[in-house]
């Protein structure tokens, strides 16, 4: 779909061409529920391989959301088209968060989806686990930046959820600086706060050096 086609025919959570990395900053469960279920439903309806990395949401609740959004989830789960994985297991498979490893897994999942004939590969992750005392969790911004650096080659679609009731305002600002798209009032929009990955990494490096 071209930008022009998308502009004239888009749904509220239709991912625009070239948009692969979106963030959702929310402060109410109702708001999140609506956005997440629409986002996942869009992926499933378009024949994509969809994964959900859950931290606080139970699989039962997530299935109920999708059923309400009109998605027949049992068949999709049984066929492996849709899967719910615990966020900590997905992001920290060996009890430690290593951005490069997680990105490598994303890339291989994308390649596998391509090989299996899916139209794409989409994921949605709850990021509240980074606030726990997990080794490497403080590198989550580096991970978010590096996704933007590989996405041209592996147009993997991902939505990262940040609960504004848990993260401080300064971190939320940085989260916006590393996502080229954001959900604003229920719609995917281009994020003008996004800065080039190299620029952000340099700032991150400088702030780390300042702390050392």
């Amino acid at each position, binding site marked *: 779909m071209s930008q022009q086609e998308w502009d004239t025919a888009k749904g509220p959570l239709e991912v625009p061409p070239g948009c692969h990395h979106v963030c959702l*900053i*929310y*402060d109410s469960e109702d*708001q999140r529920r609506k956005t997440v279920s629409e986002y996942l439903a869009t992926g499933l309806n378009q024949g994509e391989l969809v994964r959900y990395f859950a931290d606080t949401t139970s699989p039962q609740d997530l299935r109920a959301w999708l059923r309400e959004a009109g998605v027949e989830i049992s068949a999709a789960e049984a066929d492996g088209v849709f899967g719910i994985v615990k966020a900590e297991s997905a992001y920290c498979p060996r009890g430690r968060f290593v951005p490069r490893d997680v990105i490598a897994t994303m890339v291989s999942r994308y390649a596998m989806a391509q090989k299996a004939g899916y139209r794409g590969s989409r994921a949605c992750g709850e990021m509240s686990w980074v606030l726990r005392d997990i080794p490497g969790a403080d590198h989550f911004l580096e991970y978010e930046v590096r996704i933007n650096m590989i996405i041209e080659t592996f147009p993997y679609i991902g939505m990262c959820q940040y609960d*504004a*009731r848990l*993260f*401080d*305002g*300064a971190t*939320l*600002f*940085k989260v*916006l600086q590393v996502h080229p798209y*954001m959900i*604003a*009032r229920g719609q995917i*929009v281009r*994020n*003008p*706060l996004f800065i080039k990955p190299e620029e952000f990494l340099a700032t991150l490096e400088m702030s780390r050096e300042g702390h050392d």
Partner: protein
Amino acid sequence: MTEEERPPDHLKQAGPTADARILGQILAAQNVVFALPDSRRIAEFYAQLLTTIPGISASRVCLGGQSVPAGEMASGVCAACETRHHLAREDGTPLPTAPGFKCDLADQPGMRGIAIDSNQHHFGFFVFKIDQATLLDLYQPFLSNLSSYVALMLENRWQKDQLQKAKNELERKVEERTHELTAANEELSAYRGRLEELVRERTAELEAKTAELERMNKLFVGRELRMMELKERIRQLEKDMNP
């Protein structure tokens, strides 16, 4: 340069112009404020945003009794800030808008401030340390718009909170009154039960007395009939003896 080669007046550059990307960032920041749940997070978010604006080297956002810095900025004067103390003491209840009120920190040399005021309340200040005034001048009107937008959102949120509090208070009163009415009803019901009990007792007593009276009546009537029979018998005997 010939007359034809000369650019038209509206294309002549008089100096630096505002960067569309920065203006986009200021606009985008308006959309994020809705997802930030409290004054602390709003202050932290906007303090970071302000430091990305050309011409600003550090910032401080005062909101709801809290003052959040981003970057290097002395803030000794903030310790004596009456607004901040008032807001902290009053648990975030905003002050009425007072046009004469100034931020002492923003009044320092090399600093500027923008009040976060709605038409009813004063919520706080954006304060920034300037490193290039001419650059900041390009963005200040947009930052001023942003502060108005934040103030409007905070005013709406505050009014909504007040409405919610009034609703909660009303619901509490209704619940309290319902509780009182239920208690009064229960008391009334107990009285009625007692009254019915009394009526039953009285009826039973009356029925017993009536039964006793009937028994006595039957006894008296029986005795009367027996007397009449005896009288008749005496009269018959007298008649037989004196024919």
